[in-house]
């Protein structure tokens, strides 16, 4: 069954190997995230021109949209990792799934709050129960449910499987969030950015958006690596490689 998985991927799923790999990756990812983040934020706040309708309030888009994309992207990663964890019982998949949840919840929270702060001046209300906002809120509850369920089990591996199952059930919500503006009459505006074909947004507003999208993705990779490393230490506490590490880091 596993003969088609490339050898390096197979090796990577071994905890000590992944620990070393992630330890090398995360500083670069974080550095690049900060760099692209600063560039993107400068472009968003200073360089991009004000919108003719929304003046400078629209600048919230530069953090709201990348965060929203991340909230969905991370959930998809969590779903896939959970699936792998449930079917093949790979420890690393469990770790990736469970450690992605708090990061995803963070981005979903940012999406909801920044959206609310944008909605008040633009729509005149902090909140409305339209399809997109409601389904994004449901997404936050799903993340919190996964985190809660994971921590409710004594056996962490069993907890990861149960929470992973919940994540997979909830994955139906991700397309709902995405397509909600097409399927229903919503207060939230429709899509303006297309992967294939022309986007309806000005170029000098588009580039900071894309740069910040990249920045948030890099940040997610860095954060996931760090969380996964720490989680592996906790999970593999009885193994030699962890013990030597703990002893070594104690030495002043």
């Amino acid at each position, binding site marked *: 069954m596993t003969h088609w998985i490339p050898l390096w991927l197979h090796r990577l799923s071994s905890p000590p190997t992944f620990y070393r790999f992630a330890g090398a990756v995360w500083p670069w990812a974080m550095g690049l995230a900060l760099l692209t983040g600063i560039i993107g934020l400068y472009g968003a706040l200073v360089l991009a021109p004000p919108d003719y309708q929304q003046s400078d309030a629209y600048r919230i888009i530069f953090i709201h949209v990348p965060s929203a994309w991340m909230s969905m992207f991370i959930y998809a990663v969590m779903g896939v990792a959970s699936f792998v964890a449930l079917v093949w019982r790979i420890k690393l998949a469990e770790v990736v799934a469970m450690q992605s949840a708090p990061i995803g919840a963070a981005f979903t929270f940012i999406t909801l709050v920044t959206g609310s702060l*944008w909605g008040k001046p633009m729509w005149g209300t902090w909140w409305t129960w339209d399809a997109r906002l409601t389904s994004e809120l449901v997404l936050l509850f799903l993340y919190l449910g996964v985190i809660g369920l994971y921590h409710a089990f004594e056996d962490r591996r069993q907890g990861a499987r149960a929470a992973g199952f919940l994540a997979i059930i909830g994955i139906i919500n991700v397309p709902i969030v995405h397509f909600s503006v097409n399927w229903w009459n919503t207060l939230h505006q429709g899509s303006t950015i297309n992967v294939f074909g022309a986007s309806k947004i000005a170029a000098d507003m588009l580039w900071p958006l894309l740069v910040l999208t990249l920045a948030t993705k890099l940040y997610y990779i860095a954060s996931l690596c760090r969380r996964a490393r720490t989680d592996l230490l906790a999970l593999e506490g009885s193994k030699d490689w962890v013990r030597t590490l703990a002893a070594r880091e104690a030495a002043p």
Partner: protein
Amino acid sequence: MNFTGLHDFLAMGGYAAYVWPAYAVFLAVLIADSLAPTVRRRQVLRDLRAQLARQAARHARKGATIPGSAPHPSAPPPRSA
């Protein structure tokens, strides 16, 4: 330039009360998220070291009281064959 000065920039076209808190939340949440693994890592390693210390202590005690493994100071010397 889109803004005529720092004051203009901070005012954000009158929407400062919405734009700046939004950016602040973004940064604050991500900073909190980046600190969390550091805190947890320190906790995990501290707990592990404590556990190792306890186990080492237990081993040392066991090593001293297993009969035959180390002679009691007042026991007679072992008979030679």
